[in-house]
Every structure is written in structure tokens, then in C-alpha cells.
């Protein structure tokens, strides 16, 4: 790891100021992607700004028919939260299956979505549940947040504050996990929300995307039959040592059907 200057601000304003003032500042959330990256010397930030001292960024609450998760809330807290389990069990389930127990104790939702790993679990929930990402500057619709490979709608000095998930009527998440890393090779969130049916896919493309054909089929008929024979094409999907684009395309259908079954 190259050397850097470490800061632990106690307010959001201070964090934003430090970030803007740093030569090449990086935000440190749970550190479970950033620290491994630094250890491999793949990045050399001048300053690390640790958000763990900002109390308002951590915690889960319910407000206006939505579950609001603070950016610095670790995955384990989301998985164990009685509010999340009662209101959006699919989200608790998704969080409970990220990485391993110790990773879930440190990794955070804000860190995960700001990093926008194409194989992360949370993007499926942000897009699939029609969440709203609140930052220190504005609110961004979940469907507009992910822009590509490790790319988001966040500006240079913009910080995620919380993610608000509207409580869906029904939702289910299923993933085909890489057996070593537990990252989804493909993960699908299927949800019946006030704004319509949403089907979001993670792991398969450059970033999470909606499978509109499945959304239309399930809007017309919310049942396993509606998507029984529906297939997604391999064009534009990821191909790597873990799975070919064709295999990922196949998994999208399978995971969507499993997610639907889980949603009930």
C-alpha cells in the first residue's frame, strides 16, 4: 500500500470539504473493496476520508412507506434488521448472502453502490426496487444511478448519504453465486411495486439493468407461466473465466423464475 493521509471527519460537510480539498482524495466506507485495491497498489490516493465518524450515515429507519438505509450501514445490519425483514424480506435476504459474515460486518451499502462493481448484489435491489439514492447534493432515482462498469451518476465530490427503498407489494431475489467469492454470476430482483413490475439483473452486464420483456410479461400476468419460456439474449453480456455471455443469458431466465417463486 502506498502512503496516504488519513482523515476521520465527524460531519458530512467536513467530509465533502476534505474531499474537495484533497489532491486525489478517496472515500473510505467499509473498505472491503478499497483496501484490497490499495494493497495491490492499483490506486494511489493522496488522502483517505473515513466516513465512520459520521453518525447520521449509519442506521435503518422507516419513513413514508419506505425503508431508509444509511450509507455506512453494514450488510449484516441490513440482513438482521427487524424492519427490513418485516417490510422487504427480499432485501434482508440479499444482504444476508453477500460475501461472508466478517465481510458483512464491515462492507456497507454506500460503499457497494458507489463502487458499482458489475457483480455486486445491491445494484439489483437499488434498480429492482426502484430505490432513491440520497446524496449530499441531490436525490438520484435508482434506475438512473448505475451508468456502466464501476461508473455511477455521482459527481466527483458527491457522497451517498442513504438509500431509500419503497416497500414493494412483493419482491424476491435469487442469485447464482460464484462458489468461491459469493459474488453473483447473475442475480435477479423481481418486484411488484406501486410504480409497476420491475425486474433488475446484476452480474450479467456492465452494470445492473432492467429486463423489460420480463417486466411486461409479469405486468400482464404475475405468474411463473408468464416468464416460463422467456429468454434473454447474450448480446452485450459479460463473458469471463466464470461464465460465457450465453451461460449468463440462460441464468437470467433461471434466476428470474427463482426470484419470482421467492416473491410468491
Amino acid at each position, binding site marked *: 500500500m502506498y502512503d496516504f493521509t488519513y482523515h476521520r471527519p465527524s460531519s458530512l460537510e467536513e467530509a465533502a470539504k476534505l474531499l474537495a480539498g484533497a489532491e486525489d482524495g478517496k472515500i473510505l466506507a467499509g473498505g472491503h473493496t478499497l483496501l484490497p485495491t490499495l494493497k495491490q497498489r492499483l490506486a494511489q490516493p493522496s488522502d483517505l476520508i473515513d466516513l465512520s465518524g459520521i453518525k447520521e450515515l449509519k442506521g435503518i429507519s422507516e419513513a413514508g412507506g419506505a425503508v431508509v438505509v444509511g450509507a455506512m450501514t453494514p450488510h449484516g445490519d441490513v440482513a438482521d434488521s427487524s424492519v427490513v425483514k418485516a417490510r422487504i424480506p427480499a432485501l434482508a435476504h440479499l444482504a444476508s448472502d453477500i460475501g461472508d459474515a466478517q*465481510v458483512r460486518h464491515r462492507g456497507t451499502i454506500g460503499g457497494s453502490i458507489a463502487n458499482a462493481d458489475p457483480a455486486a448484489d445491491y445494484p439489483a435491489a437499488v434498480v429492482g426496487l426502484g430505490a432513491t439514492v440520497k446524496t449530499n447534493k441531490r436525490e438520484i432515482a435508482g434506475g438512473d444511478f448505475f451508468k456502466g462498469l464501476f461508473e455511477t451518476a455521482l459527481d466527483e465530490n458527491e457522497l451517498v448519504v442513504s438509500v431509500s427503498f419503497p416497500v414493494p407489494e412483493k419482491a424476491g431475489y435469487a442469485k447464482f453465486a460464484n462458489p468461491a467469492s459469493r459474488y453473483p454470476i447473475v442475480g435477479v430482483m423481481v418486484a411488484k411495486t406501486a410504480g409497476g413490475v420491475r425486474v433488475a439483473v446484476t452480474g450479467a452486464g456492465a452494470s445492473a439493468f432492467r429486463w423489460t420483456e420480463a417486466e411486461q410479461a409479469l405486468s400482464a400476468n404475475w405468474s411463473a407461466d408468464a416468464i416460463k419460456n422467456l429468454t434473454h439474449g447474450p448480446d452485450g453480456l459479460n463473458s469471463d473465466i466464470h461464465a460465457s455471455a450465453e451461460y449468463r443469458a440462460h441464468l437470467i431466465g433461471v434466476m428470474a423464475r427463482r426470484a419470482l417463486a421467492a416473491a410468491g
Partner: protein
Amino acid sequence: MLTVSMTVNGKQVSKEVEPRTLLVQFLREHLSLTGTHVGCDTSQCGACVVHVDGTSVKSCTMLAAQADGATVTTIEGLAQDGELHPMQAAFKEHHGLQCGFCTPGMVMSAVDLLKHNPDPSDREIREWLQGNICRCTGYHNIVKAIQAAAQSMRG
């Protein structure tokens, strides 16, 4: 340089470190607590698991600076008054180790599991140990040891 202070195994410590010092380096190299091991150094194997504020974490993927002000427990802090912790005793009794390299992490992870779930099923134990890798002999006796410790700790 940065001054970090924390309580480690009940003792208040304070040291000057480089900001890039990992918690595991701090424990091993600055405090000479070498019971916590570095295995993969990529947050996968779990040999470096310690408790920070009562929760199990991988100390190879945390800066010492992030633990400033925290309470840390390592494998050296489990035994009380010369008596092995029930989890350590159970690992010994049930041969839950061969070479012993993964054992400190296994034990620390298992102690945290029982805090969350005092009566886990074999499956729940195996799922919890997803982040702890043993390359000697498999997990059968480790699971047996954790079951035995759970039973003795429930009393």
C-alpha cells in the same frame, strides 16, 4: 504518522503508526500479538479474524486507524485466568485443528457466531464459516467442536 489508541484484550494501548498500517500489522508487529495470523491477505481465508467492538472482522482488511477508539479482542484475550475459553477447550477436545494456522480465526469467528446464534444447526455453522478456510483436513471436527462449545456455553 498517526497516533492510534485502542483497548486490546482489556489493555489500553497507544502507538504512533503510519496511516497505511493494517490492524493485523498493528496487532502482530506493534503489539507482538502474533496469535492473529495473516493467511491470504485478501479478506478470504479468515486466519486474521479478531473482534472489534464485539464483532468479528478480518483484521487484514481494516486499517489500525479505523480501529482508533475501539475495543479489540484477539485470540490471546479469550482465555481467562489461565482457563481456556470453552471454544478453545472444545477445539482441543474434538481435534478441531491439524496444523493450527487457521485456528485463531476459526475460534474467533465461532465465538461471534454463538453471540448471534447460541444454538446453531450444523448447516448454520458451515454457512457462518464461509469466510474461514482450513486447508488441512476439512471442517467436520471444527463443526463438532463448535457444537460442543455451544452446548457447554448454553449450560
